[in-house]
């Protein structure tokens, strides 16, 4: 007996015309819905997110099909992937049926849904449907019974759940009814390839005419449900089916943590940053529409976790609400400046977002507006820090002429006195002026000396890299500071820069490119790793137990997570990871210029991080960022656990183990 089935069994080929008519209506409604959105997206400013289309397409398809971004969180990511793959297969299966029966068979008499292919087709689709139902049940339990904190359920969530469940279940009942009347008797061998259908068929009553009636009714309702689903896509969160894969196509192909550099020479510019919807880019608006409020960003946000006004998810949703309210809508009023100033720019929201939404640049754009257009600050201390940066070129208000005082007696000289250095050590403000971090810088100088590396300094010609100013929205001040540093690099023909601070590293190495500096900039951790690998630096491993705190600007901004662990292992360290580590690390609270600001709202981010370090039971938390070291030590003091936990810098640990 032929392994196939009669398509349009029981309903007849007469349904084709009305079916395609309804399909056209549903597809038309969907197209109209998306078309309406286009105008909203277009209210944003121009931005190139299409160049290199082949690579973009490959990325979009692979990310979407592999469910790469969703699977970052195995639960519920795996179920989302299961549902996605299941539903995708079912859609593909339905499409194949239509392709054969309404096109190839009619036009060329070609039928491919038969034989082994049909057996496989039947089996795969049955399993796909089952997987989708299981996933949907898990989603149902999670969303409606378990109700995780922060997951908001709206009417369209309920409707989508109901509709999908209905489509999947009616699909199986239709199959079961058909099989009960036909296959079960006529071709029981084939029925085994539809295990779920077989099961359902067994559960149905035996009267063939009743089954045929049930089949017919359900066939139509299933069809209407499926078309209803198609029609509602743009009008509900289901829009993400299209918007997110397309957003993968549009996502930033530049270096991690890139920001738009404002052209300050452009005299036609009237406004800076974004205050209104139409001052955002179209991509920002598109992003907001691609967001499905899955709350992963909110779950990982250190500001949200410590009771601040900020939720990255809410920011994006506020932008979406504003975008659909009109191009002139005040987005800062919607998001609130309190939320904007709370961001540490740690990038965990952006890294974890399955929709590839770019949160941080939007927050910076709005901060730019507050700073550059309104002259506002996060607080008096923010104003004082900016004023110090303007006058003294460091946020502490100390005389910049004393910038290299920390190196007195260490045998390191400014390039102005001795330009023959192998590397320029860009100490940055903390290592230059903060006592704790000055000691760390001195240790790194010891390491360089031991490895035979001659380090030079810029001394009083070094200025703040501009990172805190830039992240607080003060692009003008950033470019002034950066400009002076770049001039100094050019003056001494600097090629290789080693920084004390991951923030300096990222700013000099990534952001300065837009301003014309192309030198090689590495963080000292990476440099130490290079020295060890090349045999120039030998460590004697002395065992110690520690936990490692990734700096956001190492992990999520620079993709550096292995090097520090390798160096610390070479030093004899035994690492116990905190739950939040690597590119999932929890910020110390010091990024985004926040190290210079008071943390008045909620609890201290640093204390939260110290708790996580304490949970490892290790006596030492090693970090390699001046902000992190400062914040962690603050957190340890505030949490009153100075005897149980010490914060140390990687350079200190290494310097103690020089062979």
């Amino acid at each position, binding site marked *: 007996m032929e392994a196939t089935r009669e398509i349009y069994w029981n309903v007849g080929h007469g349904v084709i015309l009305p079916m395609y008519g309804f399909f056209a209506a549903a597809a038309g409604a969907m197209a109209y819905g998306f078309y309406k959105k286009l105008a909203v997206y277009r209210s944003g400013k121009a931005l190139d997110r299409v160049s290199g289309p082949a690579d973009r397409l490959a990325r979009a398809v692979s990310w979407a099909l592999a469910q790469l971004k969703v699977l970052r969180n195995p639960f519920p990511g795996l179920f989302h992937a299961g549902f996605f793959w299941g539903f995708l297969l079912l859609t593909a299966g339905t499409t194949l049926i239509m392709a054969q029966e309404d096109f190839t068979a009619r036009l060329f008499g070609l039928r491919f849904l038969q034989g082994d292919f049909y057996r496989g087709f039947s089996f795969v689709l049955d399993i796909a449907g089952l997987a989708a139902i299981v996933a949907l049940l898990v989603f149902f339990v999670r969303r409606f019974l378990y109700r995780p904190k922060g997951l908001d359920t709206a009417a369209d969530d309920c409707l989508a759940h109901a509709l999908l469940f209905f489509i999947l279940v009616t699909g199986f009942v239709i199959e079961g009814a058909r099989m009960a009347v036909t296959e079960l008797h006529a071709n029981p061998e084939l029925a085994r390839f539809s295990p779920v259908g077989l099961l359902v068929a067994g559960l149905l009553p035996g009267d063939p005419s009743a089954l045929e009636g049930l089949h017919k009714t359900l066939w139509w309702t299933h069809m209407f449900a499926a078309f209803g689903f198609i029609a509602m896509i743009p009008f509900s969160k289901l829009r993400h089916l299209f918007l997110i894969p397309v957003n993968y196509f549009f996502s930033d192909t530049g270096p991690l943590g890139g920001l738009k550099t404002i052209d300050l020479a452009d005299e036609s510019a009237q406004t800076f940053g974004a205050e209104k919807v139409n001052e955002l880019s179209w991509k920002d608006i598109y992003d907001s529409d691609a967001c499905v409020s899955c709350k992963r960003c909110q779950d990982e946000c250190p500001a949200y976790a410590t009771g601040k006004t900020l939720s990255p998810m809410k920011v994006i949703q506020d932008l979406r609400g504003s975008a659909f309210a009109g191009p002139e809508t005040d987005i800062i009023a919607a998001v609130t400046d309190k939320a904007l100033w709370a961001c540490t720019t740690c990038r965990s929201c952006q890294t974890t977002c399955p929709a590839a939404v770019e949160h941080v640049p939007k927050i910076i754009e709005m901060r730019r507006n507050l700073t550059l257009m309104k002259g506002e600050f996060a607080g008096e201390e923010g104003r004082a820090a900016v004023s110090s940066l303007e006058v*003294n070129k460091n946020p502490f208000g100390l005389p*910049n002429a*004393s910038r290299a005082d920390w190196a007195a007696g260490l045998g390191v000289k400014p390039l102005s006195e001795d330009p023959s250095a192998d590397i320029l050590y860009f100490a940055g403000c903390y290592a230059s002026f903060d006592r704790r971090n000055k000691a760390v810088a001195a240790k790194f100088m010891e390491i360089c000396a031991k490895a035979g590396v001659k380090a030079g300094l810029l001394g009083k010609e070094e200025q703040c890299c501009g990172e805190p100013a830039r992240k607080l929205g003060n692009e003008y001040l950033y470019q002034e500071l950066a400009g002076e540093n770049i001039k100094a690099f050019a003056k001494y023909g600097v090629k290789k820069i080693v920084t004390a601070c991951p923030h300096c590293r990222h700013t000099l190495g990534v952001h300065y490119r837009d301003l014309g500096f192309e030198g090689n900039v590495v963080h000292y951790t990476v440099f130490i790793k290079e020295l060890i690998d090349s045999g120039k630096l030998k460590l004697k491993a002395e065992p110690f137990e520690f936990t490692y705190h990734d700096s956001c600007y190492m992990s999520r901004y620079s993709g550096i997570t292995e090097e520090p662990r390798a160096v610390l292992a070479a030093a004899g360290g035994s690492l116990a990871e905190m739950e939040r580590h690597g590119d999932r690390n929890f910020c110390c609270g010091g990024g985004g210029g926040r190290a210079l600001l008071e943390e008045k709202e909620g609890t201290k981010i640093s204390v939260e991080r110290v708790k996580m370090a304490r949970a490892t039971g290790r006596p030492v938390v090693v970090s390699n960022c001046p902000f992190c070291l400062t914040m962690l030590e603050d957190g340890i003091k505030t949490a009153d656990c100075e005897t149980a936990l010490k914060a140390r810098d990687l350079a200190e640990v290494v310097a103690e183990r020089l062979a």
Partner: protein
Amino acid sequence: MKILVCVKQIPDMASKFKPNADGTWFNEADLAFRMNEYDEYAVEEAVKLREKDPASELVVLSVGPARVVEALKKALAMGCDRAVHVQDDNVFRKDPWQIASLIAAYAKKENFDIVFTGMQSQDRGSAQIGPLLAGMLGFSCVTTVIGFSLEGRTATVRRELEGGAKGIVKAALPAVITCQLGLNTPRYPTLPNIMKAKKKEIAAFKAEELSAEAALSAAEKFYAPVKKGTGLVLEGGDAASLAGKLIDVLKEKTTVLRG
């Protein structure tokens, strides 16, 4: 209404000061300069007044070497309409009488209704320019102002007095107002205003062309003060051991830890 605001550029007060070559003032090398804090209050108040009356004009003036143009630019970015730079590389040798004379000579070229300036400069700290200038121009003058309002041609100001009290004074225009901390919070210039300021006029005058008044006093020496305290310095070691040392000193030298 024509408004003048006089500003000085001064070194950051956190700097370490070293005498210059002739030993009469500080050496400018390695110093970071900024607008005198009290003058920032003056600029803010002047800009606020300027904004109330679109027909008014606000001029900012500074005396000094080329670097003071930065302070003028900041004032322009804060909202002054145009700037006057009285060029004088040796302004540090001039006494308040000479500086007030330079300003007065310029101010007489235009009919200003009101002049704002800081109550004193943070570096020289003479607190004389305002009243001297008022005297030279025949204006009324109120110093140390922490509150200002204008109705018609009468300004009502609050003067800061000792112990936190304030004196309320009504001053008829034309007047010189010297501004004190607490008067206002100076605005941070917005980027569009910084850009606009780049195109605003900065008129330059040579000091010697404005006034040839001789100095009434001359500085001989610039130095750090002799310390009056007993000069005991505790440093080094960790906080706990330092605290122990301080407690020993307090036990020996004071009575507060007894009983």
